[in-house]
């Protein structure tokens, strides 16, 4: 039993509803001391008044003003997941059909891969043929572009000199384009100065 008045921090312990080991003697003292009981009661009144304080509201446009300055950003993985979800059908039969199609496609790809792995010579031949075909296509397109822009003489030059001729022609084209851009820019500047001065 405590035979003195409670200290302020001891009053706080009781007001906070502390149930620690040292609180029982404090409560026992309270039962016999009217002065301390009054002090605890006063402290409780303050706490009760504080707890009754209302939340204050900001203006009604608060949320809109905040959202006006918040960047809602969808991370790439969420965007990818949402995009993938768009392709998933909603009905169960359609989902089953898509799943079966996926399984069938995976099976076919697996079979083709195994076949290709066992016939590597065939794969090499097919790849070589595809590369030759692609190279021929690119050469045709480049020839068409060079022929249209630089004329048949340049085309003959490129054919005669091969890759070096092609690189020289491209460099020549680049220089001409740069000179043309600079010339147009200079003309535009001179024109704007003239119109600004008049």
């Amino acid at each position, binding site marked *: 039993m405590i035979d003195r008045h409670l200290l302020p921090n001891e009053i706080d312990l009781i007001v906070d509803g502390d149930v620690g080991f040292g609180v029982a003697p404090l409560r026992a003292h309270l039962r016999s001391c009217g002065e301390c009981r009054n002090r605890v009661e006063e402290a409780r009144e303050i706490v009760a008044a504080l*707890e009754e304080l209302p939340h*204050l509201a900001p203006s009604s446009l*608060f*949320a809109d003003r*905040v959202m006006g300055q918040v960047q809602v950003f969808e991370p790439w993985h969420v965007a990818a997941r949402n995009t993938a979800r768009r392709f998933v059908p909603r009905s169960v039969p359609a989902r089953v059909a898509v799943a079966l199609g996926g399984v069938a496609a995976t099976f076919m790809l697996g079979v083709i891969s195994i076949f290709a792995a066992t016939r590597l010579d065939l794969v090499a031949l097919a790849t070589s043929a595809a590369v030759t075909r692609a190279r021929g296509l690119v050469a045709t397109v480049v020839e068409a572009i060079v022929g249209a822009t630089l004329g048949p003489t340049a085309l003959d030059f490129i054919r005669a000199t091969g890759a070096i001729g092609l690189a020289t022609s491209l460099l020549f084209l680049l220089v001409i384009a740069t000179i043309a851009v600079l010339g147009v820019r200079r003309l535009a500047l001179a024109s704007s100065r003239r119109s600004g001065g008049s």
Partner: protein
Amino acid sequence: MAPTLDLRNLPDADVVALAQEGRETAFRELIRRYERPVFSLVYRMVRDRSAAEDLAQETFIKVLNHIDRYVPEFKFSSWLFKIANNLAIDHLRKKQLPTVSIDGAPDATTAAQIEATSFELASHAESALDELEARELGGAIERAIAALRPEYRACIMLRHVEGRSYEEIAATLDLPLGTVKTYIHRARHELRRALEGVR
């Protein structure tokens, strides 16, 4: 299109996770939940409605624009209150608002100076209606809170208006637990003294 969710029943952590996925409704839900607590805390710190509105707005903009940095180990509301409190303290420092003590200014040395700078809960210059309001405990307590030091104010508001534990307040305000207990104890003591004539 993403399915519509009723966000009102979800815990904060789930709403934050949805906001991190870029759902605007989740951002709005977080604002709806905390606009009043944050505004109340800031308003009671700075005592200026317009400044409080700006600071509360800044708090949400900062937090929501960096929602990807939120770590679930920390309570979302604690993070929000921490930013709000820091902004309010910065504002008070910038404005260099003098801390009004009910015992007079700290630099007051003579009795006349103490009397001249001491805080009265109900000023004689106020109208009869204001006087009556100040006599009511609710109005008087607001005035008494305004007279507390800002750090006491933040602690007492978080403890008794927001119902936070001492540990949460310590984490929110980056203060040692003992300091929080001391601040709350002193704040209650000052409030008790300030309200002696009112109750």
